[in-house]
């Protein structure tokens, strides 16, 4: 990692659910303005890592630092203030069914009272345009949108409050390859426009190469490799290369229940 305080630093992060040790001492750093992609099989601890950073799950041990501040050892108000600068795109979008699109998009701005409801529609139209959606989409309900449009709206909601650290949880899952590439392009554009730091989880290798500067691989709750995203498939690490190429044979053994 280059000099300076990293935007995000995890040290010895551990979390167990009952007897299952999901995170077993994860160490990770992301420099400000960089885009990290976290890879790993199902159950390797990727989502739990992100949820720990977001405060949705309390880790058992370890430190989570954002801009050098340890989230786990700071007062609640300060932690909330840092949380206000974090954005998250959920795998399924997690749009609020009961609200129209414009209110979904401006939800955080309204919650933080950075905007009033009269201006929120205009702001939503402006952000929707950034993800390639017409202003008229703002009046629809999330249930009326296709999967790709829901993902775009979720992306619009994520960037509307202009966060400086953004997490993406499998942003292209469930989309066709073309729409996946479109979403990846939008993510790259939005992150660059905001000058934000991005951390993404994905199983999609093409997506990982498009949106990541660097990549890291989790296996059995531990970080087993990190390096340039462009080197995925030729990393020299047997686990990473097996995963990137989608090969059945290799050091990673899938547990199949019969």
């Amino acid at each position: 990692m280059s000099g300076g305080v990293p935007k995000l630093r995890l040290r010895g992060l551990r979390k167990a659910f009952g007897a299952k040790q999901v995170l077993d001492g994860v160490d990770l750093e992301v420099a400000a303005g960089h885009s990290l992609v976290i890879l790993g099989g199902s159950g390797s601890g990727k989502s739990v890592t992100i949820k720990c950073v977001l405060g949705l799950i309390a880790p058992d041990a370890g430190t989570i630092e954002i801009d050098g501040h340890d989230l786990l050892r700071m007062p609640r108000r300060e932690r909330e203030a840092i949380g206000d600068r974090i954005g998250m795109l959920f795998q399924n979008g997690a749009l609020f069914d009961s609200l129209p699109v414009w209110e979904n998009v401006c939800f955080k701005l309204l919650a933080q009272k950075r905007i009033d409801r009269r201006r929120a529609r205009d702001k939503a139209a402006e952000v929707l345009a950034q993800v390639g959606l017409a202003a008229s989409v703002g009046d629809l309900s999330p249930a009326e949108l296709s999967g790709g449009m829901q993902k775009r709206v979720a992306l619009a909601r994520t960037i509307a409050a202009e966060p400086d650290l953004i997490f993406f949880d499998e942003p292209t899952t469930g989309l066709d390859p073309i729409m996946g590439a479109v979403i990846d392009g939008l993510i790259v554009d939005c992150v660059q426009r905001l000058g934000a730091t991005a951390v993404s989880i994905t199983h999609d290798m093409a997506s990982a190469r498009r949106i990541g500067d660097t990549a890291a691989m989790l296996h059995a709750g531990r970080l087993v490799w990190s390096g340039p995203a462009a080197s995925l498939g030729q990393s020299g690490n047997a686990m990473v290369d097996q995963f990137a190429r989608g090969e059945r044979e290799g050091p990673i053994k899938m547990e199949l229940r019969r």
Partner: protein
Amino acid sequence: MAAILLDPLAALGRTVLGGCRSVGDVALFALEGASHLLRPPFYGRRLLRAFVEIAWFSLPVVALTAIFTGMVLALQSYTGFARFNAQSAIASVVVISITRELGPVLAALMVAGRIGASFAAEIGTMRVTDQIDALTTLSTHPMKYLVAPRLLAAVIAMPLLVLVADILGVMGGWIIATFKLGFVSEAYLKASFDFLETDDVVSGLVKAAVFGFVIALMGTWCGYRSRGGAEGVGAATTAAVVASSILILALDYVLTEAFFAR
């Protein structure tokens, strides 16, 4: 041999401990939800929306329940009291039964079926689709946004619904008494209001507020704790209706004891 004796005891112990844990969890959930009513930000729109959902959209089912209950009560009282030549007591029996017991309890059971299930299903779906986690990441406390407004709305709406149920229940009795049983309208109404005391109505309204809190609490708690996709949401919905119905009946006894036991 020892296992044959100990296994059932161990299962019983686990069940009791699980029950105690749930009671503690509900109590903490209720305290946290109620505490958010006292601390800003307040979500007026969410409160209004929950109030309309409870009060306005439950009105038809509560009204129909009340009016038919009043009608049946008058009819049953007449056939029973006729054996003792006590038909004149029908008006007072109907009005006291409706205001003290049947109005609040039946309205609450109907609202538990509608609203308890609806709250559990909506919040449960939000839980399993990450919408509750999304609220947290969008600088909004889920308890404050989802639970507190529903608790307050139910506590306000239920007494209003029960007031309507009381009026319609008494009206149902009056319809049967005057149009079917041959009572003089004015005399029936006079007998109704002569026997009615303020405590009868107030106790029913206090019960309604408590039942409203219980319905909203169990609906939101079961939804909030739901896990495991559609099956989990279905289980949460069933649990919300069953738990709130049982609590309504149990608390009805406790409150009746508190108000009227001498």
